[in-house]
Every structure is written in C-alpha cells, then in structure tokens.
C-alpha cells in the first residue's frame, strides 16, 4: 500500500484549509438563503452538506490525475448533495455553491495557483458580519445566532493556520540547520497556540458580558443621530423615508413576536435546551479532564533530565520549590506601596529621587553612597541621603519622624 508522505503538521494544515473552505461556503450559503427570505427555515443542517462536498472536491483536486476523474467526482458530489438537500432554495444554493467550488478548485489547479478556498485570512470574517446584519435585516434568528459562532470558529481557525504555516515555513527555511529541535519545537509551539487560543476563546465568550456591547451600541446610536441630523439639513433627504421604513419594520417584528407558540413546540424547545445543556456540560467536563491530565503528565515529567539532539536539558527549580528544598522559609514580601511607616516613606522617596536623577535604575553593584554620588547632589545632602536610606533599609532600628522629614527635604 502506498504510504502517505505527509507530516502531522501538513495534515493539520490541510484539515484547516478544508475547514476554511467549508466555513466560507457555508457563510455564503447562509447569506444567500437569508436574502432569499428563507432565513426563518432550518437551513443549517442542509448547509452542513457543504462539508463533504467541499472535502470531496478538495481531495479530488489534490489527487485526480486526469480531468475526467475530477469531473466525475464533481458531478457525483454536487448531484448527491443537491439530491440530499432537496429541491428548495437550500438545495439550489447548495448546487450553485458546489459548482462555484468545483470551478474554483479546477481553476486553481489549472493555473497552478492556490485556490481561494484554501487560503484562510482574517478579512473573510466580513462574511460572518454580513450574515449577522442580514439576519437582523431579514429577521432570521438562526443567522443571528450562528454568525458569531461562525466568526469565532473562523478566527481561531485563522490563528491556528497562521501559526502552523509559520512553523512549517520556519522549519523548511531552517531545515539545513543541524540539531534543530523539531519535535520539541512542535510540542512547545502546540502548547503555546492552544494556550493562546484558549485565552482568546475565553475573551470572545466574556467580551459580551463586559459591557462592551452597550458601549458600542450607544456609540453607534450617537453616530446615527449625528448622521441623521446632518441628513435633515439637506433638502428632500432620504432620512425621513428611512425613519418610516425602520418604524414599519419594528411594527412587523412586534407582530411576529406576539404570535403564540403551540405547547408541543414549546416542549420540544425545552427538551432541545436540556440536551444542549447536557452536551455543553459534557464538553466542559471533557476539557477539564484533558487539561488536568496534561498538567499531571507535566508534573510527572517536570524534573526529568533529557537529552535531545545532543543537548542536555535540565529542569530549574522555581524559587518556592528551591527554597523548600533548602529548608528556607520564604519571606512574605509586602509591597512598599502599602508601607506608610517612616522607613517605608524614606525608601519610596529614595527610589523616586534616584530614578528621577539618574533617569533609570542605578548599577546593581553600587552602594547607596555611590548612587548618591552619581546623583549630583550637594556633598552634605548626598551624605545624609545615603546614610538615612541605609538606616531605613538595613538597620535593625527604625528611623524617626525627624529623619524622615530630613530625607523628604532633599530634592
């Protein structure tokens, strides 16, 4: 059997490119369905048919050696998808997007350029935005709900893709280097990108709850008011017509909202809600388990001494662990900011003046007297400045209030 000669990284890149193609096609499909006025119908499941369709075309473009092979695969995939999708608007758009995708892949291969369905980039997020606003305009609840999810997924996909692409090109560029720690690099990079993605995902989830929503909304409304006011200044402006149209839309929305929902549908929604919660909780538990397991493995391997490519890798003890090993008691450091005693104020004043006069930190080897000497103070002041600081910093006795005042007078 012929072995696939691709690395895990290349396979991951392919998967991400494939997902990019699907997400873009899906977003276009969703936009088309919403514009055609069928946004209120369940169109997501049918849209998922674009994944196997895109995947098939993706692989056919890669593997087909003759045009007829690509043609047959295209016909089968598009035909199959349309048949599964049905003869409605969803089916038609699935077919149309299938044809566009097939043509794009074919053109990309023929012109020896990378097909646009294989190049993830941040500007494609615009489609999700368009879908969201179309959903608002054409009153499609599904579109409004899936657009942020689509955008979030696509954003993370882009992050992963950029990272993997950069790692791949980095490793290719430095392939001639000897003792390149490829495995370690890949492993640590994975850790980094998962960490970044997790933090980004948390930020994406948390952002709507941080009041940014209201801020943007109010900013937008203010801008809108200003523009409308400016438009009113123009004779026979379309502003009035716009206002009327908006009012009509609001009335229609209120009418839709006032319609009553049958009890069985309500029950179904509640069931789906429950299942959704269960899936959500399971996913969270799985994530927690995976995280804990990874941390446990890290803990087990923490003090391992290894050798890779002839490099000796040793673990350095973090300060608390090192102090514990040496039976040292860690001193609890209190920040100087909270210290309002005479000693604390003297030290703060010393620090402030030193930074001010030297325009930076002094050399770590300097004594307070040397530091004071570099500060261009008068001789008497420099002596007092160093002496009082040394008392506050190192002496067992505390400084008096008079000493503190003496210190604070040195400018």
């Amino acid at each position, binding site marked *: 059997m012929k072995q696939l000669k691709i690395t895990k990284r290349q396979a991951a890149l392919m998967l991400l490119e494939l997902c990019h193609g699907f997400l873009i096609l899906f977003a276009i499909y969703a936009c088309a369905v919403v514009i055609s006025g069928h946004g209120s119908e369940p169109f997501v499941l049918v849209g998922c048919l674009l994944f196997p369709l895109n995947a098939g075309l993706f692989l056919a473009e890669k593997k087909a050696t003759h045009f007829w092979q690509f043609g047959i695969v295209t016909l089968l995939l598009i035909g199959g998808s349309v048949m599964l999708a049905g003869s409605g608007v969803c089916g038609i758009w699935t077919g149309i997007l299938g044809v566009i995708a097939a043509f794009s892949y074919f053109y990309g291969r023929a012109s020896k350029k990378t097909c646009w369905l294989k190049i993830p980039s941040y500007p494609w997020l615009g489609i999700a935005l368009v879908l969201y606003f179309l959903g608002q305009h054409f009153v499609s609840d599904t579109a409004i709900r899936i657009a942020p999810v689509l*955008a979030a997924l696509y954003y993370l996909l882009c*992050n992963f893709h950029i990272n993997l692409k*950069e790692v791949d090109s980095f490793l290719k560029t430095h392939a001639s280097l000897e003792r390149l720690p490829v495995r370690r690099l890949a492993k*640590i990079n994975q850790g980094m990108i998962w960490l970044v993605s997790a933090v980004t995902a948390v930020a*994406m989830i948390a*952002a709507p709850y941080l009041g940014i929503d209201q801020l943007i909304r109010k900013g937008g409304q203010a801008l809108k008011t200003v523009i409308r006011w400016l438009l009113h200044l123009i004779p026979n402006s379309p502003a009035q017509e716009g206002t009327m149209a908006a009012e009509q839309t609001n009335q229609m929305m209120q009418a839709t909202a006032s319609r009553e929902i049958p009890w069985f549908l309500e029950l179904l929604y509640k069931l789906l809600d429950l299942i959704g919660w269960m899936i959500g909780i399971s996913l969270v538990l799985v994530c927690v388990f995976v995280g804990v397991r990874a941390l446990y493995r890290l803990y087990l391997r923490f003090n391992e001494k290894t050798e890779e490519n002839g490099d*000796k890798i040793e673990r350095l003890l973090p300060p608390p662990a090192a102090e514990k090993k040496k039976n040292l008691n860690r001193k609890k450091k209190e920040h100087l900011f909270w210290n309002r005693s005479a000693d604390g104020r003297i030290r703060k004043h010393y620090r402030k003046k030193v930074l001010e006069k030297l325009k930076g930190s002094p050399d770590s080897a300097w004594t307070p007297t040397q530091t004071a000497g570099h500060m261009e103070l008068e001789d008497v002041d420099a002596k007092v400045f160093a002496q009082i600081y040394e008392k506050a910093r190192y002496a067992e006795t505390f400084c008096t209030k008079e000493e503190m005042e003496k210190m604070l007078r040195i400018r």
Partner: protein
Amino acid sequence: MIIIVVLIGAFVMNAVLVKIYGHLWEKHLDARVEFQKEPSLEGRDAILTETIYNRKWLFLPVLQVGFQMHRNLRFADGENTSVSDQCYKRDIFSVGSYQKITRSISFYCSRRGYYELSQVELVTRSPLMNGKFYKTLESPDHFYVYPRMVDETRLEIPFQKIMGSVLSRKNLYEDPFEFRGIREYQPTDPMHKINWKVSARTDQWMVNLYDSTSAQEVVVLLDVEDETIWKFDAIHEEGIRLAAALVSRLLQNGIPAGIRTNGRDLKTKTCFSLEPGTGPQQVRALYEGLTRLDLDQKAEHMEVILDRLREEANRGNRTYVMISKNQRESCYDGFCRLLNEGGTGVWIATLYEDMEWKLPDSRNMTALRWEVAK
C-alpha cells in the same frame, strides 16, 4: 451587535497576548556562550558551550541564539555557521519553563591566537510565530589557542646547542629548598646534612640530598619583523612555535628562561617581554604572551630591543637565543655586541628552503638554520 463584540474581544486579546509575550519573554532569560576553560593548541579541537537559562513559567517555542567568532575557529562540519569576515553561528532552541539547555559544540583551532566573544543575540517569535522580538546580551569570554609544538626530533639539535652553552657556563649551588632524596652517609659528608629522624628509624647514618639550581638564564629573542612589504607570516609563526617549544623545554629542565620579542601584544600594543623565571606560571605567561602576539601590527626594530637589553643592569649570566629570519648586518652586529658584554648565544635563522644563508661565522655564537616548509 454581539458579533462585533466577540471579534473585538478576540482581536484585542490577541494584541494583548502579543504585547505581554513581547514584554515577558526576555525576563529571567539568560544565554551564555563560553569557551572551554583550558586553552587549546593550534591544530586541535576545542569545545564551546551554549547555555540557555529560562527562569520563568513562560515557555519560548523558538529561541534563536546567534553569536560571532573569529574565522580562525571553525566549527565541525560548519554546523549552523556562515563564514565571511567572521564566523557567524546561529542555533535554534525550544525552551520550556524553568529549563536549562546546554549545548556543547566542537570547533577546530586552525591558527594561534587570542579570541574573544562579546555578545549573544537572541531572537524569538511571537505566539503566532508571525512577529519577531530581539535582544542582545553581553557574554564576554576569551580563549587562547597556543602555538603548536614543533617536532621534538628537530628541536633536539638546537636544544642541545643551547644546553651546551648553558652547561659550559653553569655555576652549581645546592639549594636547601630543592630536596632530591636520601642516601647513606659517606665520610666526606658534612654533619649538617644528616637526617636525624631517618637515621634513628633505619639505625644507620643517612644524609639528605639536594638539587642544585643553575644560575644560568636563557633569554630567547624573537624577531617577527618584516623587512619589506612582503609578509612572511608562516616563518614568523614557525618562529613563535620554536620559541615556545624551546622556552618550555628549558623550563622543564629547571633552567630559568625568558623571552623578548619585537612583536606587539594584541591588547596592550606593547612589545611582549618576559623576564627569566621558572615554574608553571612562567610557562603559562610565556604561552599567553606568545599567543597574543599580533603579526598585523608593525613590529619594532630588533636593534632597538637589543640596545635596550644591553642597557639593562644586572643582566647576570645569560645565554641568548636569537630566532629570526632577518639576517641584516645591523641586527647581527647588535647581537654580537650583546654577547661581547657577557654571555653566549645561539642564532637560529628560520628560513624557507630557497632562502640564502647570509650570517657570517663567529666565535662567540653558534648559528643554526631552521627550515620552514612553504
């Protein structure tokens, strides 16, 4: 509106993460490039060690460590190196949290010299690998590549000549601090040599034996001056090797030896000289001084060095060994004047095979030809 908020959250978080990473990556990060502690010899291999310390929780997927070294030091197989005016080396590491990575690299010392390392350049990539951060660390270190040893069999003749001169003028004194051993008492031995403790233990009279110290000193005069614009670096290098070998051999035999050259020190720019002495420190000082001789700097005239030597008081009983390719009359006269004022001498002319022998015969001095391979 939620979509905008979500995307803003994502973009802001990415930017913040990159900023935080850019701020934190260099904290508690140290990189050192160090030569092996012991000096090496010309034509031998030595070890260079790169050590990375990352004393923080943040890990660095990619850390490029670059430094430059003199091109006379060549890495084995040219590992990760580009050679132009200098030898530029860059290595890539992947550093975990609280980790120390040590990499040892072997390199070949192609020429004698004093080599320095000054800086280490660190480059890392942003979390998404699409940005770069730079930092330069000071990592001063130096390394001596001592001159190669000359062939022992070839060295035997000049060494014997020098030893002949030394022995003919040697005054022997017993040194009570140079203990050599113990033997049975002979009737001619003085009483103060009896070792009372050992005699009591062995039940017979035993006396201590002491080594003698030689009052004779040897000073090697090394001439690395080029008379014309034509450079004879190979001959001078051979001269340096010969001087190092002779002096170290003399020191091994317990004869105090020193050196005077007209070549300049790489750092101090002064002519290197070492007063006669003995011991391991003398050997070390000799090798370090000869290693630091810079043939690119203009050497002083040998006549000036000889005049200075003549003017010195308390020169004692010395044997002078001149190592030079130059056979000009003024230099020869200067050397003869030095010998006439007390001392014996050997002149070793380091010459290519096709070079003419011009030195006249002299009763005071022995002249030898040392052929240098082209």
